[in-house]
């Protein structure tokens, strides 16, 4: 639509920074009432900023959490979910040793969502995408993390076959729903499906961490408003109506996602099913979505990270290449 010079008035997407960079979007003060803007949770508002101004308005969020199969844990005589990476490897080995096709950990590093799985492991080892405003994808910590993931597959052999070529939805989640898998990183829609099927007993907890406190990934979707002649008043009215706490909360609840505003957090906190995720939400970290280069870096990660955990793969070379491309894209 942009290509044909016919942008929409408002758009819901999981990326906004490239549009802001191309100067196509209204900033918050042009189209949002101050009340709406101040209600956004701090982390999500910051995740929508481009050059210090809010351009991507948070519309919904989700947080990943650590899922484990309590039946398999009991059979392997594991009493509590792993807290450290050493615990994690030991537990995964115990589950795999149960035999009968049991898989310790389902690791999806295929192109669907490799950047999400990777972010979580990277952060729990104290690494990050960036250091200051420079990319740090190939930092020593990150090379170590990717080596750890490759070892899970090729040395400890506690993952499903070919984790670099497994997607999340039809791969890792499918195996967990089938009761074959001890541990997986999931989110609330997975819980919904598991509850509906009632086949697998599971619990949800925090990620095992190798450095500091456990961190999880928060994902936010954005609503953005395109600058078009004469649409500012109408867009403003629409957004005001949409962001009325009862309206947006009803929509987020129906879709099974998590809130982005303080009022929504209060409204939804009574739901026991959502509690584990809501507890994680304030400490969730976001991918560097505010950087326009991220939209390409993400795709690059999706198409290459999986190659690093194949037998004979080279984690350092893969991360070096990602770092090189990201730096070239940002021009710094």
């Amino acid at each position, binding site marked *: 639509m942009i290509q044909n010079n016919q942008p929409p008035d408002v758009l819901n997407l999981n990326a906004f920074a490239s549009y802001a960079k191309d100067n196509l979007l209204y900033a918050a003060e042009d189209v949002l009432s101050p009340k709406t803007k101040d209600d956004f949770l701090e982390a999500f508002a910051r995740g929508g900023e481009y050059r210090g101004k809010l351009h991507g308005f948070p519309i919904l969020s989700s947080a990943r959490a650590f899922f484990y199969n309590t039946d398999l844990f009991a059979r392997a005589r594991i009493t509590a979910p792993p807290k450290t990476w050493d615990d994690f490897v030991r537990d995964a080995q115990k589950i795999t040793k149960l035999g009968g096709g049991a898989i310790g950990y389902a690791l999806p590093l295929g192109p669907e969502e490799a950047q999400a799985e990777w972010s979580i492991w990277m952060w729990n080892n104290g690494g990050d995408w960036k250091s200051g405003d420079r990319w740090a994808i190939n930092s020593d910590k990150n090379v170590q993390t990717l080596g750890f993931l490759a070892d899970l597959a090729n040395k400890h052999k506690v993952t499903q*076959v*070919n984790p*670099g*070529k497994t997607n999340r939805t039809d791969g890792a989640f499918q195996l967990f729903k089938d009761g074959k898998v001890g541990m997986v990183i999931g989110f609330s829609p997975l819980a919904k499906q598991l509850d509906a099927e009632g086949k697998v007993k599971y619990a949800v907890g925090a990620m095992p961490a190798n450095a500091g406190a456990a961190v999880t990934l928060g994902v936010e979707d954005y609503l953005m408003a395109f600058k078009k002649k004469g649409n500012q008043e109408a867009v403003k009215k629409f957004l005001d109506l949409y962001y009325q706490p009862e309206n947006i909360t009803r929509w987020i609840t129906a879709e099974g996602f998590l809130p982005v505003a303080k009022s929504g957090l209060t409204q939804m906190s009574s739901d026991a099913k959502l509690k584990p995720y809501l507890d994680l939400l304030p400490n969730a970290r976001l991918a560097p979505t505010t950087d326009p280069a991220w939209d390409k870096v993400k*795709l690059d990660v*999706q198409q290459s990270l999986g190659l690093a955990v194949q037998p004979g793969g080279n984690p350092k070379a893969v991360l070096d290449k990602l770092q090189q491309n990201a730096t070239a894209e940002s021009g710094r």
Partner: protein
Amino acid sequence: MLIGAVVLFPAVELVRASLSRYSITGLYQGAVGGRNYARLLQQDALGPVALNTLTWVGAVVGLTLVISLALAQFLDLEFPGRRLVRWALIVPWAASLIMTSKLFVWIYDYYFGLLNRALVALHVVRGPIDWLGDDRTVMGAMIGVGVFVSLPFTTYVLLAGLQSIPGEVYEAARVDGASGWRTYWAVTLPLLRPALVVAAVLNLIYVFNSFPIVWTLNDRNPGFGHDTLITYMYKIAFKSALRDVGLAAALGVVNVLLTLAAVLVYLNTVRWRESFEA
């Protein structure tokens, strides 16, 4: 008018896009002349992808023609239930390609797939094979599906060709004392040539341009190791760090020219004029 709107306009737009630069959001950022074409040639993935395309088109079209010849011959025979078999053969053709491909994703699956279960039960293999994840088997698995969905159309074209061969020529061959095989080589195949040429050319175009099968069966593999030029084009535009509509359009133009060239070369080798005038 219609030709202008349906054929010429998109073609002109494609060429124009291939000479332009766009930002990731699709915003036009000016003309760049032939630079997209030059950049296309510098892509590391281009060589392997072109080779994949050659394997894919060659194997699918070749196998399809050979198997279809046998199938058409069989369906040309009189036997009870022939109508049913003819109907059954249409099914893969009538089903949506995405549905068929998705179905095969599950048939090939390492953990849940029927194929592995059958092969293990029959002691053909000792353990399951990750057909769509193992680099050695992905292309073969895709070719299998490609042949499967190309058979119905091809078989029917060849069947129509067989039925247009008059009975008298077979009678003449019999009178001359020709054996079954000799009749096939000397009478059936030459007379079937027009149908064979049509089937080959149309398959060449369909298979080259086939997106759903390669896309669906290859969607869990990172990188471009098993892409054809068509899926690679899509990845350049939307699914890779390149994220470049102009570059993808340049590959689109190249793809059209390649198909055209392949068809012309083929028609030239089989001397199609003669085969139709014969």
